């Protein structure tokens, strides 16, 4: 008994100290020149020894800001870093690298517009991303057409505009990327609840000889999500595992599988899946959720860190555009505050309407006990055309 109390006390003290540290900026008083003040994030995008090359590239770029090759090289690297770390500042640097071309610059190379749209999408500026892509695709001769159409299809899907997404998917196939066009259509079909047709299409594509691992993982994840929405848990589990076996570094598949496992009340496995990941906000949120479910000692610390990160991020008034989903999920499943979760989820679905967003919205509506909110959620799911057994069960 006593030792438990002491443990709790000690834990509380550590937690308190941690929160105080995170909240307050503490002065640094270095004594020696070789003392390390800050460590720049180490990423695959910046392998050791590449920093000098990157600096020289930035210098060249500063002299020739309209050299598209230089600009795109930097932008690509910065965006990859933003993805890897979940840190939007690097997406901002990618935008700066291609900043020499204005939005309405008719001479902007097609690849520059495509890069801008991709960064805008990362920053959840979906309308802006779609507008940039449409400007690009309205040009007469466009390099990279299938790529641009595929990006547009994805943006429209995230916005819950499946019909627009379909027509973009068809252009992907028409532009010569048949497999990607077909997978794109299959995913939309699955979202509409045409599970059998979509499953057959995806399985057909998976039988393509010499598929790249990344593409295989993408198709398998799409299949796993389809089975998850259809309530076929074993098939979903198997597809997620196969996806991660094909490409263990697929961050999206890893997060989606963790969500599945948490939903299945298998937190220990969820924690194992998340373990190798960079502690981005999305990963930390799942660690807190799974940890709470499993009752681990680490759970409270993870939740406290997430709470602190949200507080710091919200110092910026527009933070919820980028963080809306994670903040709603945290309020709903970790803080157990359905009223707050509902407000956040409602704000989030104004721009992001993937199944997870609607699921969080529906769950918050149900738990808050507001009949009007449930009807709103139902109306939105109908408007989008999403068929998801999990959402349906809640409404």
């Amino acid at each position, binding site marked *: 008994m006593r030792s438990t109390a002491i443990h709790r006390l000690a834990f509380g003290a550590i937690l308190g100290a941690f929160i105080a540290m995170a909240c307050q900026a503490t002065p640094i008083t270095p004594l020696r*020149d070789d003392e390390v003040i800050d460590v720049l994030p180490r990423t695959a995008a910046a392998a050791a020894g590449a920093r000098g090359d990157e*600096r020289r590239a930035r210098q060249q770029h500063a002299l020739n800001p309209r050299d598209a090759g230089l600009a795109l090289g930097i932008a690509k690297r910065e965006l990859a870093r933003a993805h890897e770390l979940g*840190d939007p500042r690097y997406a901002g640097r990618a*935008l700066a690298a291609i900043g020499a071309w204005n939005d309405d610059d008719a001479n902007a190379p097609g690849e520059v517009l495509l890069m801008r749209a*991709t960064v805008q999408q990362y920053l959840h500026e979906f309308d802006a991303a779609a507008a940039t892509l449409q400007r690009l695709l309205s040009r007469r001769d466009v390099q990279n057409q299938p*790529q641009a159409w595929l990006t547009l299809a994805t943006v429209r899907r995230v916005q819950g505009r499946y019909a627009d997404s379909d027509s973009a998917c068809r252009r992907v196939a028409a532009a010569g990327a048949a497999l990607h066009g077909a997978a794109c259509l299959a995913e939309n079909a699955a979202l509409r609840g045409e599970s059998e047709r979509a499953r057959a299409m995806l399985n057909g594509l998976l039988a393509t000889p010499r598929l790249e691992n990344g593409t295989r993982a993408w198709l398998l994840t799409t299949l796993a999500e389809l089975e998850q929405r259809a309530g076929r848990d074993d098939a979903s589990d198997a597809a997620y595992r196969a996806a991660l076996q094909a490409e263990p570094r697929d961050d999206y598949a890893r997060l989606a599988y963790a969500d599945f496992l948490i939903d299945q009340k298998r937190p220990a496995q969820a924690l194992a899946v998340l373990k190798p990941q960079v502690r981005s906000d999305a990963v930390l949120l799942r660690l807190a959720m799974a940890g709470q479910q499993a009752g681990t000692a680490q759970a409270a610390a993870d939740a406290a860190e997430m709470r602190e990160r949200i507080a710091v991020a919200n110092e910026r008034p527009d933070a919820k555009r980028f963080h809306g989903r994670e903040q709603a999920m945290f309020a709903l499943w970790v803080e157990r505050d359905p009223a707050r979760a509902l407000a956040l989820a409602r704000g989030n679905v104004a721009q992001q309407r993937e199944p997870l967003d609607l699921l969080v919205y529906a769950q918050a509506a149900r738990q808050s006990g507001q009949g009007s909110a449930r009807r709103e959620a139902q109306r939105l799911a109908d408007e989008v055309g999403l068929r998801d057994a999990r959402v349906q069960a809640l409404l």
Partner: protein
Amino acid sequence: MMVIRVLFLAVALLVSTAAQAHKASDAYLQLEVGEHRLALRWDIALRDLDAAITLDADDDGRITWGEVRTAWPRIEAYALPRLQVVGCPLHLVGHGLERRGDGAYAVLQLESACVLKTLPALRYSLLRDVDPTHRGIAKLQFADGRPPVLRLLEPMELELPSPSSLPAAAPLPDPQAAVAAPAAASRFEFLRDGVRHILTGYDHVLFLLCLLLPSVMRRTGGPGQATHWEPVEHLSQAVLPVIGIVSAFTIAHSITLGVAAAQWIALPAAFIEPAIAATIVLAALDNLWPIFPVRRVAVAFCFGLIHGFGFAGVLAELNLPSVRFALALLEFNVGLELGQLAIVVVTVTLLFLLRHRARYRALVVRGGSLAAIAIGALWWVERTANIAWLPV
């Protein structure tokens, strides 16, 4: 196959957008608005400053205290012009470092003795050219008990004042946050690099001397004959050709310095370094026997092109900032020219005073040129064979 590869990248990017989120780049500004005084504290993330002005000088991914300490003047020179409180000229009174949840921040403490009747207008352009998603989060507090006001500052285009009108650094009064005194402003860091480079770049100096040695003399005797030199009567007879030769050399090496810095043309050092040695030998030989069919101005220009590539060779070691790289390069070049001008003025004055001495021709022109030929030849061998005999 090509299309699919490109697509795969997009797929990886597209599908992973769904769930990631993290704190964006924010700077924090705390303003205390008093009756006769405005105090402002500005916290900027070191990793953001690194992107703008390269703090991690050795590219090892770790920002050490030594790197920050030497970078303070550059941090101040970069940040201060990018914040204006309208009606309140800001002075730097101290600086420090602090740790936040997402890394270390530089803290700048600023002050202004100004009276604000209304809410101050803030003009902000920090990191505009590095990360357009950066924001300044400003919290204004009032001594008269008004409730605090929060502002979100979006980097906008700002007329940057010229470096000379930057607020000067003053000694710090705050021992808590400030860990080091603001260094006496080293504003023209790259200018000084330029001066240092020409004064310690002995090969460039020797080449210049070879061109200048006969400048106080007039050449008599036609092509093909051994040169005979006569002293000039007036200083102007020496100065005009000197200006011509030095200008030609300057224009030429500025061109190649710029071209090489922009990496439009890259020549290997293994070619440039011996070539510079060769220009010394040839220029000195020309003092003894005229070997060039063209005027010395043209020779100075042609050889200047080669020397410019030599200057560019040290650029990589200089750690010029990415932001405003062109300006830093210009500063470096102006430094070179100033150093060169000093050498020219001193040398020509000295030579002019000595020109009537009986042994001037024998000792200075002939002896100097022979010595230059010897040194240039030794350098040439050293640089071709990659060995070292001479101390420099």
